[in-house]
């Protein structure tokens, strides 16, 4: 007597096999989490040169919280959050709560003072000093763009916090 047909048995067996395989994988993943993690990451490249820029950009986005990034067809967005909101946001999120209340003179400030500005870390502070020493004082806040690594975005972000005298 045949209770089940062959395709029926195959279906049930296939389902059991999939569940069994899944159980095996689950157990293996728990036993070797490092190996599983590495397998999962095999096609995720470590930041290369070009994508380092992207990573840096992502950081800028973090502090600016306004720069859209999107896949096609999102070629949108010349619109941005209002600048004021952006500054507040940069301050709120920048992680450095001790932004100096007084504007900093970029032609006199020390590296420590500069490093406290929003969006400026130690590296950029050092570069600002280097550029100032090498090329003379900054004629204006806009002139800060001489500093390698200080783009439009950062300079605009700095504008409320710095003066050049």
């Amino acid at each position: 007597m045949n209770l089940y047909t062959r395709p029926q048995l195959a279906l049930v067996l296939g389902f059991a096999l999939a569940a069994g395989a899944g159980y095996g994988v689950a157990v293996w993943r728990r036993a070797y989490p490092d190996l599983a993690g590495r397998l999962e990451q095999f096609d995720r490249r470590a930041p290369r040169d070009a994508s380092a820029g992207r990573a840096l950009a992502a950081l800028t986005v973090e502090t600016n919280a306004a720069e859209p990034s999107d896949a096609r067809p999102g070629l949108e967005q010349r619109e941005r959050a209002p600048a004021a909101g952006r500054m507040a946001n940069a301050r709120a999120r920048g992680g450095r709560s001790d932004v100096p209340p007084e504007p900093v003179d970029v032609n006199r400030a020390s590296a420590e003072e500069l490093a406290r500005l929003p969006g400026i870390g130690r590296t950029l502070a050092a570069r600002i000093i280097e550029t100032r020493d090498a090329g003379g004082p900054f004629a204006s806040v806009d002139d800060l763009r001489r500093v390698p690594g200080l783009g439009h975005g950062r300079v605009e972000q700095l504008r409320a916090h710095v003066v050049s005298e």
Partner: protein
Amino acid sequence: MIRWARMPLAPLALAFAAGIAFAPWLSAWQPWTVGAVATVATAMLAFAGRIRAATLALLAAVIAAGVIRGTPPPLPADHVAHLEAPIVAEVEGTVVGEPARPGRGRLRMLLDVTRVAGQPRSGRIQLSLFGGRPPDLVPGQRVRGELRLVRPVGFRNPGGFDYAAYLARRGIHVAATARGDALTGLDQPDAAWRTRVKRTALAAMDGALPPASAALLGGLLLGERTALPPEIQDAFRMAGVYHVLAVSGFNVALVAASVLAVLTLARVGPRAAALGAGIAVVGFAVVVGPEPSVVRATVMGVLVLGARLLDREASVLNGLAFAGLAILVARPTDLFDPGFQLSFAATLGIIVMPHPHGTIAGALSVSLAAQLAVLPITLAHFNQFSMIGPLANLGAVPLAAGATVLGLLGASLAFVVPGMADLLFNAAWPILLGLRAVAAGAAAVPGALVHLPAPSGLAIICYAGGLGLTLAAWRQRVDQPRRAIGTASAAAVLLAGAVGLGAGPLLPRPEGTLRISALDVGDADAIVIEPPAGGAILVEGGSGAHRLDAMERVVAPFLWNRGVLRLAALARTQPEAEATGRTDDRQIPAREIWTRDSFRDGPRLAGGMLVSAVSGAPLILRIDYGRASFLLAGDASVATERGLVAAGSPVGATVLLAPRHGARDSSTPAFMRAVAPTVAVVSVGARGAHGHPDAETLARLTAAGARVFRTDRDGAVLLETDGRVLTVAGFASGARERYCLDPEQDC
């Protein structure tokens, strides 16, 4: 021969699509009157027994209907688009569809506006939220917030993607921005069941699998690929297997087949099984959402299952035509959607191409048919096609099918036995890894992805005609071998014509003209120089590319469409500056990188023009060709300007590419006196947040005697000269000027 009688809907669908496609030109021709006359004529001719004439009249009537449907209706009087933009106003509206998360801290959604500043208004807007903490939003929720309403503007460049037109086709004429916490929900409706199903399924996958694999499974099952890391998406695109990440006939067929198999084996009658599969397919489509490819696959799937239900044979092509007609009647602008075009072209290609027997040969042939059919579409929209695709699909499709079936089972069990679902997702994990490995491996093959200029309409028509005739010749080869030879040669001529037309931009230009294009990339510089002797040089400047990928999304397609697959040189005016948004040299490789050191030995002759650096840091280039000269002052600061004037550097030029997007303290009077340009080009973003260009700076440029072109008003500014005559054209504004540079001669 094509047997039109077996697919009566195909000519109607084609006529309707033609009407929509040509609506902008035909809408002036009284489509209502033409349609009415053609309908009456159809009836009378059919009554008189003149069937052929009646058919033609019917097609004319359908074309007229397509024109009527394809012409956007006038906006109602209370539409938000009538508001003065940009404004900041309190807006009330209803969330449409599931909000998308295009990036970290960003949320984008469609909003059906009900009120603006207290006044009743209508219309759909696209709202982007940045930062803050947006409330939990569900489709159908009513929200209120202080939003900034603006007209959407994309970058306007030759061959570029017109974002504003894209939004307008979807009925969106206003975009809005706000911080996330500016929006408040007015009610808290329960999410619709389809949203809940989708969220539960995605959450179950997220719980069972590591993030990237969970995102991949979400893409395979539900087409939800926003969480998928971009490098994995790139790999899939390069390998030509990206289509598995979109919901298509593939998923629908797997859903239908799985349900059908289970029900049949559970001894449910064939009709009840077909009915059950039909319900499952429709339910799946509702959960996934109304993308054209989903609707197409669902309509065709339901037709096939319905035919099974009625014990009739289904004509697949007729089903395809019916699906196309249904989509176009409901949403005519889908005709221009790449997803719609790819889905229908691939399906058509697979249906009409004869496939050999045998599993591997058959699979290869299916894959090849789809690739051949979508080739002009991917070239036209994305300037690319995958050479490795047909091969990569052999590995990817079975893996994707396996993972999809396991995932579907798991997702359905997630609502009943969550533990069981976890096991099935885990079983899918090695398959997902395998799929990723296939994509990564295929993408790593040199030459996997080829970039080419977008083909012209004529080239596409030649190509389609050539493929059709090839098919006809193949069918005639047994019965009418002699005619088959004739058809085949006609097909060869057409295909050769298509290749010739498509390769046109790749041929060298006639020598003697220098073209300089200042592309519209916002507050940044992207200047493409095409020297008189051929080749192309790209000068990039301004570190504040406000969109991370604006450069590569705008510059690369522009170059590809100009037939430039390789740059002769790439100059970055601030080589050490942060590298955001720069052209990715994987897309367009450059033979040489120009820095200040490249000009240490003085001016260089490049492609028949003279290039010199008037300043090293930032790099400021000067180009001389005949009587025309160009000063690319992109990143000159006030100090640089002052230094150049003091040193008496050769800055006098016919055309000044103005420094720093027309910032307040740029283009100082002394500098302008020294340059004395005839034309000044300001590369500046529309509605940039920096307030560029400054009105006084513009006044200084004009006062120096220069006609000012701006990329925010004119779109890309295209300059062309033969050394004697200079023409300047604004791509978007249509402004054109012509200057004779030789005072002695009339030209």
